[in-house]
């Protein structure tokens, strides 16, 4: 019997459709894999199933009965426990408080003594083979993988009927993933269902009975996991054949466009790197290891110390205006294009020409015809799809908005591009176009720093990859060594293990 089903679930955020007409069901006692690219709607679907988001249309069905999950508490009453991508433990509380008190004050209202909470937590940790974690330790002092494991313990220690794991393994190391799988199998043996989402195919294939695929917010298919392979599922996820996705890499020129020596900021340690003309330098690592700070520092939006050399000339970039101007020629595609990059209520034209208005100024006035002609040229070069450049940018799709951002920097003559998660929230077709455009810019002599939350993009786009960990560059990987396994391994691998052992 189906435990939890979705019937024609849709969810929009304003004009953006995150989910469209998704129907799938999770059977009792099955491990159900959920896959899709970034922006495919996995997180939205999981939020709806866990009661933290209401669907705009459609119905959830719990054991053949229609239900409306108005809150996470309501879902928990039914027996749905969720481990979210973002950690929900309270950082300043101890492990014991988080595990025991956060589960609710006992109905009989008796005060919980410290000792009782401690004992309960200790017993719980022992049940999950985590005796090495001290219940009195504050959560904030634990390494990320431990926190993630506690989160999992918290979710499955009750008596759940359905456990939802949203990218729960992204912060875990290999042995810890095995630990989790052990517990998932135990849950399954007790008839508990598990919904499991991950970016790693090996995990999905290793634990799931069935796999559901989402693409661009739409349900594609549910398949038996032993009947498919990675290529098949990736094709279903992207709507394309696996090997058609990325442009071929062309060797860069030798001229070093940007060189960074011992860059430090509030949190960054000793970053040194260089990018040559024609080169795409990928930035890898788990999210939040300093990638954002690096991009903002190089663009002058965060104070830094250290030496930055552009075309062999030492420069100081005190603010974004410096980065854009004065022969430095840096352009940033920021993390959130809607609030940090674009002016949604202004036309495409103004959005593109804004950083380089000086070029169109004559005797204090803008030469509108010249401006329009050059903006149109840049927009055409980047294949911006819009009826005219007078359309408000807010009316464009995510991918087209990103192309407007790229057009802006092409027009500004920026040939040192800092691309921070440039394909986030962009549909698959446009993603491919953007890959081609980036490759083309590189071949035209641009130097590109490329970060993506989708590691496969970094692997396939970059000539070299700087893997960041704890606000440092841990390693720069080149050539054939750029593989998914290497980058992911370095993101969380051996050194993390050392850290984790010493602090555990």
């Amino acid at each position, binding site marked *: 019997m189906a435990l939890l089903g979705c019937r024609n679930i849709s969810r929009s955020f304003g004009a953006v459709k995150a989910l469209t007409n998704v129907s799938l069901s999770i059977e009792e006692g099955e491990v159900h894999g959920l896959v899709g690219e970034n922006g495919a709607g996995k997180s939205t679907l999981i939020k709806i199933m866990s009661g933290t988001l209401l669907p705009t249309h459609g119905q959830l069905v719990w054991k053949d009965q229609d239900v409306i999950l108005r809150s996470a508490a309501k879902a928990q009453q039914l027996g749905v426990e969720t481990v979210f991508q973002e950690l929900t433990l309270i950082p300043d509380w101890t492990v014991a408080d988080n595990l025991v008190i956060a589960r609710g004050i006992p109905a009989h209202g008796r005060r919980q003594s410290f000792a009782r909470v401690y004992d309960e937590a200790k017993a719980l940790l022992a049940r999950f083979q985590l005796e090495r974690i001290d219940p009195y330790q504050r959560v904030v002092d634990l390494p990320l993988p431990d926190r993630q494991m506690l989160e999992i313990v918290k979710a499955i220690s009750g008596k759940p009927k359905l456990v939802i794991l949203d990218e729960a393994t992204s912060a875990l190391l290999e042995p810890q993933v095995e630990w989790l799988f052990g517990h998932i199998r135990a849950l399954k043996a007790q008839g508990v269902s598990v919904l499991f989402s991950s970016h790693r195919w090996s995990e999905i294939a290793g634990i799931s009975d069935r796999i559901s695929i989402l693409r661009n917010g739409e349900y594609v298919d549910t398949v038996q996991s032993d009947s498919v392979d990675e290529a098949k599922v990736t094709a279903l996820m992207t709507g394309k054949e696996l090997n058609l996705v990325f442009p071929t890499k062309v060797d860069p020129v030798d001229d070093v466009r940007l060189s960074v020596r011992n860059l430090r900021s509030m949190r960054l340690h000793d970053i040194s790197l260089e990018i040559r003309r024609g080169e795409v330098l990928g930035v890898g690592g788990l999210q939040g290891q300093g990638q954002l700070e690096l991009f903002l520092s190089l663009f002058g939006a965060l104070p830094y110390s250290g030496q930055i050399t552009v075309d062999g000339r030492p420069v100081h970039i005190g603010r974004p205006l410096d980065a854009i101007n004065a022969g430095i020629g840096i352009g940033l595609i920021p993390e959130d294009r809607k609030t940090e990059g674009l*002016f949604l*209520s202004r036309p495409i034209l103004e959005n593109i020409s804004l950083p380089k208005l000086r070029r169109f100024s004559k005797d204090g006035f803008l030469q509108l015809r010249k401006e329009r002609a050059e903006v149109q040229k840049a927009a055409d070069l980047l294949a911006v799809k819009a009826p005219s450049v007078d359309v408000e940018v807010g009316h464009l799709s995510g991918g087209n908005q990103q192309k407007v951002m790229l057009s802006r920097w092409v027009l500004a003559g920026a040939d040192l591009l800092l691309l921070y998660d440039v394909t986030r929230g962009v549909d698959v077709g446009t993603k491919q176009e953007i890959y081609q455009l980036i490759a083309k810019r590189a071949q035209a002599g641009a130097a590109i720093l490329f970060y993506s939350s989708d590691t496969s993009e970094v692997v396939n786009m970059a000539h070299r990859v700087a893997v960041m960990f704890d606000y440092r560059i841990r390693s720069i990987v080149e050539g054939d060594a750029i593989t998914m396994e290497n980058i992911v391994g370095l993101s969380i691998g051996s050194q993390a293990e050392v850290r984790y052992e010493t602090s555990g």
Partner: protein
Amino acid sequence: MVQWWNRMARVDQNIAMSYVMVVVLIFVGALISVGFASPSHLATLLTISSFLGIVAAGQTLVILTGGIDLSVPYLLNASAVFFTGFAARLILGHDALDFLVVLAISVGFGVVNGVGVTVFNIPPLIMTLGMNSVIEGIVLVVTQGTPQGSVPAIASAIVNNTVVGIPIILVVWAGLAVLIALILTRTSLGRYIYAAGTSVKASYLTGVPIRTAFIAVYAASGLFAGLAGIFLTGFSGNSYLGMGNAYLLPSIAAVIIGGASLLGGQGKYWGTIAGAITLTVLITILQVLNISQALQDIFYGVVIFLALLFYGRQANARG
């Protein structure tokens, strides 16, 4: 017709609506009082509107950046008082020179507002409210409570004389309107103003000189309030304490009725002009109907609520 309307940008719809409002109100006035729509009375209505329209020009620019200028009452008052005072004591000895010096002082006050807002990050509401109080204090000290002096000929001439039958002040107003439109649509500064008003964060990351834009709009607000103060002395024949107070709320209301967004980034001065005329005609009608000051104030407030409500609705329907 409907299609043509739908194709217009939201801001332009709002501006068109505010001009429709002007025509409707004048029609209503003509029904109530014979001669309301006569050319000479219309010229008088426009002349009275021009003071508000000029003050609201600065307010428009400030609101376009997402700010607000609450110091316009004493920006206006200070320039009026200084202008007549200079003339009486003949400190500078030349009307035109007085005119420029007084405007320079007004711009200076505006620059202080801009620096406070953008360099010291003081919220515009607080900065300009404080500045209003500071300028009031300065005016009190300088005048010792009683403004003195006479109105120089240049001011009365601008308000009372005509060229080819049109009051000079209306020609000046039209000139200012064209100037502002040119700045907003044809200069880098105009683009920066809209950009900063739409998103300060995005502006910063796009290399927009935000500080320059902010200081420029507050300085412009000082300039326009100062101009209005000088013209107003020509209209009223003297200067007195509190003569700017009646312009605070209306200057903001005119901008809103003219279709600009209080959040910044959306609006045009053409709308504000309609807003200023609307408010002036409305008040005149209320006066013609002999409605008490108290009721007039209530009515005024309600009109502003309605304008905000109406435009707010449209924004929601779109967003």
